[in-house]
């Protein structure tokens, strides 16, 4: 068969076009030497106002553009270091805290940092009352009293709280991003309808941090630019460029080709694929997320302690971390993530089908039971749910999965309409009270109480004596005693609650070998860019 001339010409043209495409000019360029280029899924960002931001990507960004009065040392996890406050103190009665501001520090705008800025920033969190506001309002602040309780005088800031707390609890909360200090003058210059600059700060920054937000395109990218004269010393790299790359395997390719420096959204499969690559290293560290099952106590027979115990023996913890959760999670059966004060690391529960069957028979269900389990329909959670469904089935608990969109599953859970549900929880601030006050504390289990932010309430579980134990632990001033108290609460919780805490997440960060000093913040999930070199 011969081609007619026209087709031969067309074929030649096509071949030429392909050759052109193959010319070396389109070969991938390396990333600029003064810029850290990262890829991650950043579509979780809903707001960049510190009073509202509460998602991983937003918190990462804000940690590098704002400072708070006191901070966690990125180099020594868990240790407090001065931020914008030079020193701080607490009164004898443990209810009044004073902070002395550092002098000579300026915001990115050039305005000096004053105690007044600090007072205003904390007050506005309470007055705006966005989701993370509870981190501050749990100390008794309300929009009406906050101007009296948080006061600036010269270079001193005084904060009065409404009852005794462990000072470490208060300090830990002050390191959270919600307590970032904002440039009052700049924010107020952009105020509309008395919103304390909220509309403007959703997409702009006005802080003291090492970087300034230069450009932000939602669900696409952001660019941070180093500001000269950062009080800790200038950032090593001039720019940080974050690209939204939702797919792990695309991130992996970009990293291998050198088109990005750091990939933060890789799956274990991607990481295993990177194993042989000479230019790339992978760092694994513990993240704060805990995965757990919650059993609604309004549902028969899930409110039977023997049934709950049987469920604890019907999860194949070890099997799952060796298969579907390999390199992704570790077994953790206390509700505090490892790395927190009071962590419990022993794992007494393991798959034991016979024991579980016996427990079910004791409970009066020798022929087993049937339940539904709601789960968010992302691939990892579905795999987890199927693994759990399988082993529960072996023990005689027939599980029907009820997958749904995130907001749908969450809505069911908050409305106490679930039976079993597979959920996760990340700590809100680096203090054990953050998880204790939600897993093991429930002052009013009635439907009318509507304590929708409290996990124990959501699953209709009366925490009993644990509520008082949590209240006692959060005011204990002796750190050693406090640690023991949280250990005791967790062990009791592990054996008797309506929760089955199972796993803690591992964070995987892959980087080109020339990238050094990237601190991801571990369980507090606050990444620092300003030490990074490449």
């Amino acid at each position, binding site marked *: *068969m011969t081609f007619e001339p026209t087709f031969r010409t067309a074929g030649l043209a096509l071949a030429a076009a392909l050759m052109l495409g193959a010319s070396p000019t389109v070969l*991938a360029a390396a990333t600029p030497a003064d810029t850290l280029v990262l890829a991650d899924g950043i579509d979780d960002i809903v707001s960049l106002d510190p009073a509202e931001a509460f998602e991983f990507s937003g918190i990462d960004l804000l940690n590098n553009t704002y400072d708070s009065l006191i901070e966690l040392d990125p180099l020594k996890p868990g240790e407090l270091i001065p931020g914008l406050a030079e020193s701080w103190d607490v009164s004898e009665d443990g209810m009044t805290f004073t902070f002395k501001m550092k002098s000579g520090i300026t915001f990115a705008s050039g305005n000096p940092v004053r105690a007044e800025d600090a007072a205003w920033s904390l007050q506005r969190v309470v007055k705006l009352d966005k989701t993370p506001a509870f981190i501050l309002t749990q100390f008794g602040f309300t929009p009406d009293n906050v101007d009296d309780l948080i006061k600036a005088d010269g270079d001193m800031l005084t904060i009065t709280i409404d009852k005794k707390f462990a000072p470490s609890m208060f300090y830990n909360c002050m390191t959270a991003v919600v307590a970032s200090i904002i440039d009052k003058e700049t924010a107020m210059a952009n105020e509309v309808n008395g919103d304390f600059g909220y509309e403007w700060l959703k997409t702009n920054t006005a802080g003291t941090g090492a970087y300034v937000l230069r450009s932000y395109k939602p669900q696409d990218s952001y660019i941070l630019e180093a500001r000269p004269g950062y009080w800790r010393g200038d950032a090593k790299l001039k720019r940080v460029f974050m690209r939204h790359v939702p797919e792990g395997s695309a991130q992996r390719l970009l990293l291998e080709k050198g088109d990005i420096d750091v990939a933060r959204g890789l799956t274990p499969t991607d990481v295993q694929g990177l194993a042989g690559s000479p230019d790339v290293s992978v760092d694994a560290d513990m993240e704060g997320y805990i995965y757990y099952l919650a059993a609604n106590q309004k549902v028969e027979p899930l409110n039977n302690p023997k049934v709950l115990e049987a469920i604890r023996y019907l999860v194949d913890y070890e099997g799952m971390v060796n298969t579907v959760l390999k390199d992704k999670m570790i077994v953790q059966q206390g509700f505090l993530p490892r790395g927190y004060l009071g962590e419990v690391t022993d794992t007494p529960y393991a798959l034991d089908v016979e024991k579980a069957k016996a427990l079910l028979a004791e409970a009066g269900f020798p022929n087993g039971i049937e339940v539904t389990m709601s789960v968010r329909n992302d691939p990892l959670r579905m795999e987890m749910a199927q693994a759990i469904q399988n082993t529960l089935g072996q023990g005689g608990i027939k599980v029907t999965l009820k997958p749904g969109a995130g*907001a749908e599953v969450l809505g069911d859970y908050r409305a106490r309409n679930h039976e079993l549900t597979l959920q996760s929880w990340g700590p809100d601030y680096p203090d054990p009270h953050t998880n204790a006050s939600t897993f093991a504390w429930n002052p009013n289990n009635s439907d009318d109480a509507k304590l929708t932010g409290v996990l124990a309430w959501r699953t209709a579980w009366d925490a009993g004596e644990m509520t008082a134990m949590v209240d006692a632990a959060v005011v204990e001033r002796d750190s050693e005693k406090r640690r023991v108290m949280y250990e005791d609460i967790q062990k009791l919780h592990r054996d008797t609650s309506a929760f089955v805490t199972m796993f803690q997440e591992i964070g995987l960060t892959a980087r080109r070998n020339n990238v050094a000093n990237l601190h991801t913040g571990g369980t507090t999930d606050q990444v620092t860019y300003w030490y990074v070199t490449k």
Partner: protein
Amino acid sequence: MTRMTAPDISSPRPPSQIARRFKRVASVVLALFATFLGLLLVTFIIGRVVPIDPVLAVIGERASQAQYEAAREALGLDKPMWQQFGIYVWNALQGDLGQSLLTRRPVAEDIARVFPATLELATIATIFGILAGIPAGVLAATRPGSWIDQLVRLIGLMGYSMPVFWLGLMGLLLFYGMLGWVGGPGRLDAVHEMMFELEVRRVTGMILIDTALAGQWEMFRNAVSHIILPAGVLGYYSMAYISRMTRSFMMNELSQEYITTARVKGMPEWRVVWVHALKNVMVPLITVIALSYANLLEGSVLTETVFAWPGLGLYITNALFSADMPAVLGGTVVVGLVFVGLNMFSDVLYRLVDPRAK
């Protein structure tokens, strides 16, 4: 069926011509408006009956009941449904599509950001599809049963049946990962993307056009190297469709009597096929191409995910998963507009290629 060249029977225009034309335009506008209202109503109702609480999408897991109520009120969700719909339509008529719950920005602004990326990709993909699909279809039709026909059929079948996600990833692995011929995921390399963000004035939002307007030719070349692969993948699918349709239209056309007449007259075969026959299949083909283009303009979620392409498909899907109804409705309006626009455009094209439609 036989076809003849229609004789010119145009008669002098009656005096009521202008009034009739006006009437026709008015009825088209009315039909358009009714279509949109229906479209909005259906989307709106679907958004309300799905068991997803949009308030939770805004406030997240931690919010207290008081914060929940406050957000619900701020979103206007405490009002009766018909009132919510009325407010929405009224605002939409003034160009305000509301605020996205996810990005907290005006939906119109969001769409202006994501749509050019999709438009750019879909246009180039469709050009690929036409350039490869029509010749392949014609070739197959002129040699039915030959190996060329079989090859075109095979390629077309693969185009129908291969998952785009897989094809995209394999393409990336081969042409970007191993051969380094094309750019990777994203619309530009990081270095260029950052410079584009900081230095290039945004005119159309389409990187190829904006960089060309700014005279940034290196950036332009980089953008070309990034768009080739995703456009190629999408173009492959549209090629598969166009070539199959071209083949069947051509087969039908080539059996017509006027073709036999032309051949008997001794007209060169290429002229018979490429001029006489092809010209006559252009009308149905335009519909096929317009439909395939419109499909691509809705945005392809999977392609956009694999290639980290911030387009309309990804935007609407994200919005759907998070019950972000303002964004879903806004996206629906745009997709509706695209369909209507393309319909009108293909009407115009009919008139150009088919004198009888004038």
